[in-house]
């Protein structure tokens, strides 16, 4: 009798473990997908590889902390339930980060148009350092909690057990991915695709390429900010936004390469694939021989395996090589 119960418990924990790996992988993958999506939109539209993406994500998270916990604006002015106040402040911070992206493009990237890709990449490394230095000064040595309403609450349904923030991550990501898909069917979105394909031909249609660049940077920065938020709350971070947050974005690089540097759907798929791979590795590949940090390497292993078979990533185009 007791044996039976024991077997039952083992089976249960097997299912729980598996489901846990999936939910964790999906919510982690959603963050990667958001980071990759913003990165790819900037790259596809402007041919700029932004090494400042992680810093922008951290800036977004920091602005949320600042707006929601210090200024209490504009959510506080609105009143209503606390979670709504926070959400309004967070949305405002995301929009502010998008504006920062727009400004970065205008003052640092646009003057570099026509320069070699390598030089522009160097400029983004400079931006990364500047943004991180400024935000870190404000954050100082103590991580800042975002004041989010998710807390450490867990949502449970059958074998599923997820942190509130994980549920929110997945829902918000789905909404944003759909919004981006819709955007690329809109007038500006079609113009952005045209610009990505052939800048001069786009200009000849009367498309203001500079404006398209600015919009791409704004969208990329906004998406990075959202990713920054979800990577700075439980269970991804224990104490909020810190100097570490900017480096979280580098973990999304395998997702970007995996999906194909210039593929928007690839960024989303790549994000989830890498998230799941990392999550499963963390849960199952726990043999002592590999050490504890092994799951962190798995994204790169998956990326390398895919590149062996498909050198341009899952969805990337061959032309990318010419860049």
């Amino acid at each position, binding site marked *: 009798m007791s044996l039976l119960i024991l077997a039952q418990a083992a089976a249960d924990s097997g299912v729980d473990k598996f489901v846990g790996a999936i939910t964790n992988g999906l919510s982690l993958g959603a963050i990667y997908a958001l980071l990759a999506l913003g990165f790819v939109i900037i790259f596809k539209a402007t041919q700029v590889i932004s090494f400042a993406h992680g810093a922008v994500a951290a800036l977004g998270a920091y602005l949320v902390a600042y707006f929601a916990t210090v200024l209490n604006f504009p959510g506080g002015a609105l009143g209503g339930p606390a979670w709504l106040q926070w959400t309004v402040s967070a949305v405002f911070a995301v929009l502010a980060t998008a504006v920062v992206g727009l400004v970065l493009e205008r003052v640092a990237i646009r003057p570099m148009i026509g320069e070699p890709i390598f030089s522009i990449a160097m400029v983004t490394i400079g931006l990364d350092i500047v943004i991180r230095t400024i935000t870190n000064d404000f954050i100082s040595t103590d991580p800042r909690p975002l004041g989010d309403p998710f807390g450490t609450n867990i949502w449970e349904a059958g074998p599923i057990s997820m942190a509130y923030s994980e549920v929110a991550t997945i829902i918000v990501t789905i909404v944003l991915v759909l919004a981006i898909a819709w955007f690329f069917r809109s007038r500006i979105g079609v113009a952005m695709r*045209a610009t990505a*394909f*052939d800048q001069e*031909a786009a*200009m*000849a*249609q*009367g498309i203001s390429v500079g404006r398209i660049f600015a919009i791409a940077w704004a969208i990329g920065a906004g998406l990075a900010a959202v990713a920054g938020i979800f990577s700075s709350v439980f269970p991804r971070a224990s104490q909020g936004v810190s100097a570490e947050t900017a480096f979280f974005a580098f973990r999304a690089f395998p997702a970007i390469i995996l999906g194909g540097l210039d593929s928007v759907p690839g960024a989303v798929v790549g994000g989830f694939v890498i998230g799941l791979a990392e999550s499963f590795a963390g849960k199952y590949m726990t043999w002592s021989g590999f050490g504890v940090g092994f799951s962190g390497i798995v994204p790169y292993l998956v990326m390398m395996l895919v590149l062996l078979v498909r050198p341009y990533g899952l969805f990337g185009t061959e032309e990318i090589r010419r860049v």
Partner: protein
Amino acid sequence: MLEVANLEVVYNDVVLVLRGISLQVPDGEIVALLGANGAGKTTTLRAIGGLLDVHEGDITKGSVTWNGERIDKKEPAEIVRAGITQVLEGRRIFGEMNVEDNLRTGAFTNRNKSSVDTAYTRVMDLFPVLGERRKAVAGYLSGGEQQMLAIGRALMADPKLLILDEPSLGLAPKLVQQIKDIIVDINKQGTAVLLIEQNATMALSIANHGYIMENGKLVMDGDPKKLLEDEDVQEFYLGLHGSGERKSFRDVKHYKRRKRWLS
């Protein structure tokens, strides 16, 4: 009316490519601009469309005016909005996008819904094949269809002046004939056309006025019929030598010696 006056263009601050070009495209007319490869035809169009920047080119002298207003310092978008669109050399359709989205990019500056609808209907009438292939990926269209798409896309902005850079390049004779008829149709609907061609016979057969360009200078202009009859034009631009045998444009040396008749 488009007026190019005394235009000089330099690439990379050193290469002088246009050496004082003056030409006019009156409202509602077809004007042909002819010349051998490298004469500077495309450069002239870039100067008109505000597209020199992309190529590190600068206007160092002269002006481009459109209905009396200077446009040589304007952005490409402003020039399109003012009513001048061009079909770039080599079609340059957006190959990854479908036919309909390509057409939508052409309507980018056209914010008036009814004007866009009118333009769309006009394009569908001129190019029924584009309607049939609305959802096809543009990159998979045939060369002729791509040229039609490029022209249709330019018409979506509802231009007063349509500029075409070698629309017949690489097309079979039957398609060249078709493109020619379409240009005539477009012009009949009230759009002025500036037509750049290597196929001088085709261009001169429909133009109201022709210009001939060589090494960044205009060397001749006038009534297309007269140009067609001119012996030198026949020899050097139509490739017909006395007996009727084809003559290569690449015969530069010989040509340069013969060029004295021009100066």
